[in-house]
């Protein structure tokens, strides 16, 4: 809402607001402090200071200068000088009959006026118009009165209204041409203003071109009414319109504000009731008013002690409280309550019937007028209960040191991706992955779907940082991914497990590209070297979770088919890692190979353990190296798993110490080192040799593993 400071200071004494420092002026801070947050400041020599104020969604009464003045008055205790409403409405009925056929319009007033031609606009009104002279002067006057008093009004050219005015709900969708010349479809159930032949306005939203006031208009029907906020909102939304009128009606206009607003209009238009046509001013011809019921006289009763306790202001005086409520428009009756306490009976002003319902509302009014910052702040008591952490938070805390120590920087990726990216991923997965969740109304094309993997985002962030000159981007992100479940979801409330959601789950993801180390000016690592370093980080994460990493085969569609592996904690697959698929790299403009790991947080939490103790042997170890043939595209780690499964006594460790591929051969020579060690005694070479013979025989016979020649 635009608040003209010059208009405001006509109504109430206000704090300083110099034009050259309006943005940091005492008035600006006061407005902020009473909840009328200043979002913008404009200063012009002609109009002075204009604040753009963000009003609260429940306070339709703030959409006028009078409303702002009242709020200031409750704070500063200065009096509000209301605008003159000395204009007279006519005792004679308007010549056009009004038929109000729906209670969705609880009040309807029609003021019939003749206008001078031409009708000049008063200078004091023109000063507040954005484009004075663009519209007929009566239209500017209506806008001015709304700005001042908050009542939206509409003017029809009386000569274009045929027969009578009917206010009714539409029973079917209608099409209209509005004042802005555009055609709109008005939904069924809207409040329409019609004459005998046509729709002349969509109530509370916009008038129709067929009855609009033009330069030649000499007689108008001014409509001032109260329309149901919800109906107006539904209609305006469906029409894709938000006008000053609809904005006000949606938030609720004062049911008792119609008459003062019309009188103010008559006063400003220079018209008088029932007299001969004035050559300079407008002339009231007739006036018709219709209402459903008188506005409710709502009362809220509240104990003074309760108000003081809530704000922890024990010294707040009754007189101050009563004065502030009165300045807000409440009628206040004070009665004795138990002890020294007092009960305030507050009659809610008509312009607050939309939002003041109970003691909490009046407490808010008092806090606002006193200033919440005057209230004493009291820290609630501490607790001896142990704070319970969410499993994903515990997981994050456990793995962060492993990632941080390896140089990984936490980033936060977006939750979305675009339809184009969905097409790319679906092309790669050939429909094998879970169904994407699409968003229906995203304003940005890049936000049309929820992500179900983080690979695109991390690849994009790696690429951006390489372009920024970061030579070794290494990033991680614990994030939520989304997909539609294959089974229908029950609608009834469930006490869910902490990590169970139907459409989403958390994943730990990390990625790296470029060099491994920073500050390195020599040649970077090969893909193989980078792979081993990256796998080291995967192992570090798994170790941090109390387990040992093993890997298996995987066929993840977003990774290079020949350069990926599943991540296992013990025997449990918890994720996948490998080189990002070239098609994704290309899409993200990532020009170097990059590694990516994605691990399911639910599974990590499930298999996470704590180390209970470590036992080391003081007896010497004996090692034996053997070189085996491994097919070129086979995982050498398979043998490690087979050896482990063989459960050889005293075999304490197995590792790979060499991997050699001779050009032209379709197998590699992989050297494995077996370490034997007993916790109780020194082993003998003979028994180790015997164990090795047995192991090799078993590998050859059962699994077809061959010694390399």
């Amino acid at each position: 809402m635009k608040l003209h400071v010059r208009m405001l200071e006509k109504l109430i004494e206000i704090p300083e607001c110099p034009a050259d420092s309006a943005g940091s002026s005492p008035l600006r801070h006061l407005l902020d402090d009473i909840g009328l947050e200043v979002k913008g400041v404009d200063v012009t020599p002609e109009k002075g200071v204009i604040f753009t104020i963000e009003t609260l969604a429940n306070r339709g009464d703030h959409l006028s200068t009078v409303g702002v003045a009242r709020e200031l008055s409750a704070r500063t205790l200065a009096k509000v000088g209301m605008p003159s409403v000395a204009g007279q409405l006519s005792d004679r009925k308007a010549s056009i009959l009004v038929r109000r056929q729906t209670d969705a319009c609880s009040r309807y007033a029609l003021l019939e006026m003749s206008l001078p031609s031409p009708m000049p606009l008063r200078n004091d009104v023109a000063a507040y118009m954005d484009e004075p002279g663009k519209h007929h002067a009566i239209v500017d006057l209506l806008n001015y009165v709304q700005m001042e008093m908050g009542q939206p009004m509409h003017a029809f050219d009386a000569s274009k209204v045929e027969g009578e005015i009917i206010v009714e709900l539409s029973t079917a969708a209608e099409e209209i041409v509005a004042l802005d010349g555009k055609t709109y479809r008005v939904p069924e159930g809207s409040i329409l203003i019609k004459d005998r032949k046509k729709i002349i306005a969509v109530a509370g939203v916009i008038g129709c071109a067929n009855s609009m006031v033009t330069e030649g208009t000499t007689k108008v029907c001014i409509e001032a009414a109260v329309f149901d906020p919800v109906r107006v909102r539904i209609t305006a939304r469906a029409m894709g319109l938000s006008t000053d009128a609809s904005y006000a009606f949606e938030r609720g206009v004062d049911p008792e504000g119609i008459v003062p607003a019309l009188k103010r209009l008559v006063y400003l238009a220079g018209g008088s009731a029932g007299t001969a046509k004035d050559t300079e001013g407008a002339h009231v011809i007739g006036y018709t008013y219709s209402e459903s019921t008188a506005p409710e006289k709502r009362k809220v009763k509240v104990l003074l002690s309760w108000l003081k306790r809530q704000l922890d202001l024990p010294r707040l005086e009754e007189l101050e409280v009563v004065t502030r409520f009165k300045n807000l428009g409440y009628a206040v009756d004070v009665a004795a309550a138990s002890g020294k306490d007092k009960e305030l009976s507050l009659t809610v002003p008509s312009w607050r019937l939309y939002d003041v319902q109970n003691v909490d509302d009046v407490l808010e009014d008092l806090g606002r007028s006193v200033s919440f910052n005057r209230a004493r702040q009291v820290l609630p008591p501490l607790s001896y209960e142990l704070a319970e952490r969410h499993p994903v938070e515990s997981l994050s805390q456990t793995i962060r040191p492993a990632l941080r120590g390896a140089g990984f920087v936490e980033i936060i990726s977006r939750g979305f991706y675009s339809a184009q990216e969905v097409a790319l991923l679906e092309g790669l997965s050939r429909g094998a992955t879970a169904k994407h969740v699409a968003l229906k109304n995203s304003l940005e094309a890049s936000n049309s779907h929820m992500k179900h993997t983080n690979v695109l985002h991390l690849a994009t962030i790696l690429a951006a940082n390489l372009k920024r000159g970061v030579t070794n981007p290494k990033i991680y992100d614990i994030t939520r991914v989304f997909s539609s479940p294959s089974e229908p979801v029950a609608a009834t409330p469930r006490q869910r497990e902490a990590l169970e959601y139907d459409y989403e789950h958390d994943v730990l993801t990390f990625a790296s590209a470029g060099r491994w180390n920073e500050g390195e000016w020599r040649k970077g690592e090969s893909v193989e070297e980078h792979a081993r370093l990256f796998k080291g980080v995967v192992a570090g994460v798994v170790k941090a979770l109390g387990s040992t990493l093993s890997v298996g085969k995987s066929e993840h569609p977003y990774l290079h088919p020949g350069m990926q592996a599943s991540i296992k904690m013990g025997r449990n697959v918890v994720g996948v890692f490998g080189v990002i698929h070239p098609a994704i790299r290309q899409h993200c403009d990532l020009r170097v190979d990059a590694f990516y790991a994605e691990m399911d947080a639910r599974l990590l939490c499930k298999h996470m353990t704590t180390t209970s103790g470590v036992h080391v042997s003081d007896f010497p170890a004996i090692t034996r190296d053997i070189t085996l043939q491994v097919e070129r595209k086979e995982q050498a780690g398979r043998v490690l798993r087979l050896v482990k499964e063989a459960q050889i006594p005293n075999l304490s460790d197995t590792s790979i110490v060499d991997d050699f591929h001779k050009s032209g051969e379709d197998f590699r020579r992989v050297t494995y080192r077996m370490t034997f060690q007993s916790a109780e005694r020194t082993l003998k070479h003979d028994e180790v040799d015997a164990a090795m013979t047995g192991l090799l025989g078993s590998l050859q016979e059962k699994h077809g593993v061959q010694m390399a020649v």
Partner: protein
Amino acid sequence: MSSDLSAANIQALTERFEQQLKMAQQQQDVELIKRDWLSKDGIVKELFKGLREVPAEDKPSVAAALNDLKQRVESGLEAKEASFKQSALRKQLEEEYLDLSLPESTPGLGSIHPVTYVEERITEILRPFGFQSVHGPELEEEYYCFDSLNIPKYHPARDMQDTFYAETGHVLRTHTTSVQARMLQARSLFEGKKLPLKIASFGKTYRNETEDASHQAMFHQYELVWVEEGLTVANLMGLITHIIKELYGKRRKVQFVPKFYPYTEPSLGPKIDCTICRSAGCPSCGGAGWVTVGGSGMIHRNVLKEFGFDPDTVSGFAFGLGTSRLASQMFNMPHLRAVYENDLRVLKEIV
């Protein structure tokens, strides 16, 4: 080999040894002298063999002279050897050089994101109050996001929350207050409305915005809910101020301005003095010198009623702090977009 054990001969041998030692120029010479004098068939051993033939009355003095000779030989050789080793080491050190001004090579020290940092700090600050940490879905049902929170379908308050609607029938949660609704319901349905209810929840929230420097479709909130008998507005403000002061230091100013949120009454917006401009007014704070860092209020009685709690006996407060905003203020980031730019040059240095 001489076995003359006369004092004169021993003295002559001593002088001969010292002369040889003096002439030794390198470690190899020392090794040769050592072989001549101290090996199994060296001069010293041979002299000791002759001791058997020395009359008994002379043995003590001859043996003492031989021991003296042996000791002189051993210590002389040892000293000479040490001297050569020292000079060899000196020479080696003079030749060796490592240019440590060349760039280091390190995987670097990683970091946590500023938003995570703020989340963890708040969690630590709240620990003594015994809050249970819970997470909720981001793809949320309208009931938990709006309807149960006193936001009817056609209320203008829904304008405040430009909402993403998913084809699944869900919305993307516009605030973490939806977790509050879920926890109130769970406590009501499954735990006999046990009080106090103290929960903390943080995560991503979404608004359907056209994105620019100050508008993001995604941001982070830290939600806190406390339901118990007798809680007041003063308690709410006290706890928020405590968090802010713990985060930013005691000198940080906090103020509360009235706001409207359908799920709280009264509703308050906590503000802190702007770090970027030190309250002088800048684009980050809209010229006001103050930055709103969240929304808060006493839980609306309609929300309590919705989940079966009696608002006349039970009260509660809730607030959602904008952790993105808190992070931008903590690390002097002039606009929210900077928080989510994921520029490693910045993130590596921050935390």
